[in-house]
């Protein structure tokens, strides 16, 4: 079935799982998204909805399709079927760059930074979508180009200090330790003024203390009205800060609900959490 046709059919909502509401203005939603590699379904008909001002956890054992799902939402992989929308705007066929312009920002499991540039420069990169000046304007250092640069610099500085990197603004990003790099990537994403922030296992390799810092930052992000998708392995962390949690196994959704509902679900316990 053509992914586009799916959006246009009015009766599609009748086929949706109960937890995905119909009228979701400005939510990032995935409906029956499937991603196959040959005969293998890495993601199997998963639906979820990321609402503004909400932290949505996505958990599951290794190979359950969590990161694939994140990549599908951002556009790094195309869907095999299903559709993805922001509000009523279908973005299933949109490129990564187009989705970024539409308000989706993300971090990576292994931070992708420009090691030769400073922390500040890296964070400023996130402001790309708000620039309008092109090559010639930059080469001639037009007032607009300089103003855009200054504005983004100011915003990046604020956000970097906000996430806790005030001390290292001028360091080359390659010199940061692991935790700092993760927070830098988050800062870069926030400089983009996103509506949705998708975090790919941000707690990986962090100490208890650092995870607490991360939780505080993510909470502040949510309170500012940004929808956060948290793909994670640290289930304690997930259950503590998430508003809703979706659990995947072998590419398919096995449980969706509040942290308490998910944590106590027998199938989730059997497949993932253990006794």
């Amino acid at each position, binding site marked *: 079935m053509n992914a586009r046709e799916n959006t246009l059919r009015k009766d599609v909502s009748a086929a949706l799982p109960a937890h995905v509401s119909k009228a979701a203005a400005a939510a990032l939603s995935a409906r029956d998204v499937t991603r196959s590699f040959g005969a293998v379904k890495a993601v199997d008909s998963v639906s979820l909805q990321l609402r503004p001002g909400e932290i949505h956890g996505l958990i599951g054992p290794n190979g359950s399709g969590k990161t694939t799902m994140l990549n599908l939402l951002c556009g790094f992989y195309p869907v095999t079927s299903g559709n993805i929308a922001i509000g009523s705007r279908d973005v299933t066929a949109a490129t990564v760059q187009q989705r970024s312009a539409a308000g989706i920002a993300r971090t990576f499991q292994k931070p992708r930074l420009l090691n030769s540039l400073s922390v500040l420069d890296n964070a*400023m990169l996130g402001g790309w979508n708000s620039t309008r000046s092109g090559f010639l304007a930059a080469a001639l250092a037009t007032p607009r*180009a300089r103003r855009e640069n200054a504005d983004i610099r100011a915003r990046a500085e604020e956000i970097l200090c906000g996430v806790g990197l005030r001390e290292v603004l001028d360091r080359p990003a390659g010199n940061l330790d692991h935790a700092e790099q993760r927070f830098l990537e988050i800062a870069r994403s*926030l400089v983009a003024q996103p509506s949705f922030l998708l975090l790919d296992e941000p707690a990986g390799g962090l100490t208890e203390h650092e995870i607490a810092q991360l939780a505080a930052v993510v909470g502040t992000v949510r309170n500012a009205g940004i929808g956060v998708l948290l793909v994670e392995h640290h289930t304690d962390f997930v259950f503590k800060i998430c508003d809703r949690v979706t659990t995947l196994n072998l590419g398919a959704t096995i449980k969706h609900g509040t942290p308490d509902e998910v944590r106590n679900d027998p199938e989730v316990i059997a497949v993932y959490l253990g006794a």
Partner: protein
Amino acid sequence: MKPISSSRPVLLVLSLVALVSLPFWAPDEYKIHLATLIAAYWVLIGGLNLAVGYTGLLSIGHVGLFAIGAYAFAILAGTHDVHPYVALAAAGGIGGLCGLLLGLPSLRLPGFYFAMATMAFGMIVGELSLAFDGLTGGGAGISVPAFPAPFDKPATVFWLVLSLAAIVTVMTWNVARLMFGRSLVALRDSEVAAAAVGIPFYRTKLAVYSFSGVTAGVGGAVFASLQTYITPETFVFDLGMFFFICIIIGGRGSILGPLLGTIALTALPEVAAPLAKLGQFFYGIVLLLVVLLVPEGIGSVFHLFRKQPAKTKHVVKPELELLSTALRKGAAR
């Protein structure tokens, strides 16, 4: 990216004074000519630096665009008596157009494919300059007019080329320190991150590559005028390698590094005659050593002399109030 000069304005001013006054303190006319030649190379290399050093586009055949600029100038100003300044501008325009045309199909390809495409382009230009001998003089070559007065003396033509080099330098420095420059580095070092923040690959690469075509065209034109006579032999693949090596040994992501690299590699064979004989062999060795031992370029060695903060672990200290304010300031979508 911190401009290099911000930490040493005095040094910069002194260098500029020395540079501008060069015709007065240079020992002989040949040295002035050499300096002019270096400046002509830098017109191309400064622009190419954005494409190669910042964006990572391995245009090893850029000499083809250099040749096009040179021949365009020679044919327009020489054969057709177009005014040299107009011919110079035209050479830049044609270089830019050819850079764009070369980039359109090639910039979608991965690194090695793109490099080979430019190498092939360089060879084609060589071939065509032999083939269309009615236009280019074929293997025998073509003579190139000098600029009219007041730029017909060694000192004045030096200042002319120096001005062009300065314009290119300022333009590239602007790009490097503004947002566009960051997007170039992102394309070079992490395409994944670049896509995630919304940078359009193809359009950005086309823009910077076309610019490098313009500077190649202008550089080729002044180079041709300096040489007074050009043949297809002048623009062999090895010359393209030379441009490339100047950038790499100077260091990617820097303007000063490749500039020093250009000066060093042009001047060195003049100073050390045995090196002149070895020519390309020497350049190849230098490139290999730099790539294996100092891949960040020799320019990065200067950074070692600057005070490096210790790689101590910092505790991340979020300032949540500040973060909250900053996030709410963001324009609603």
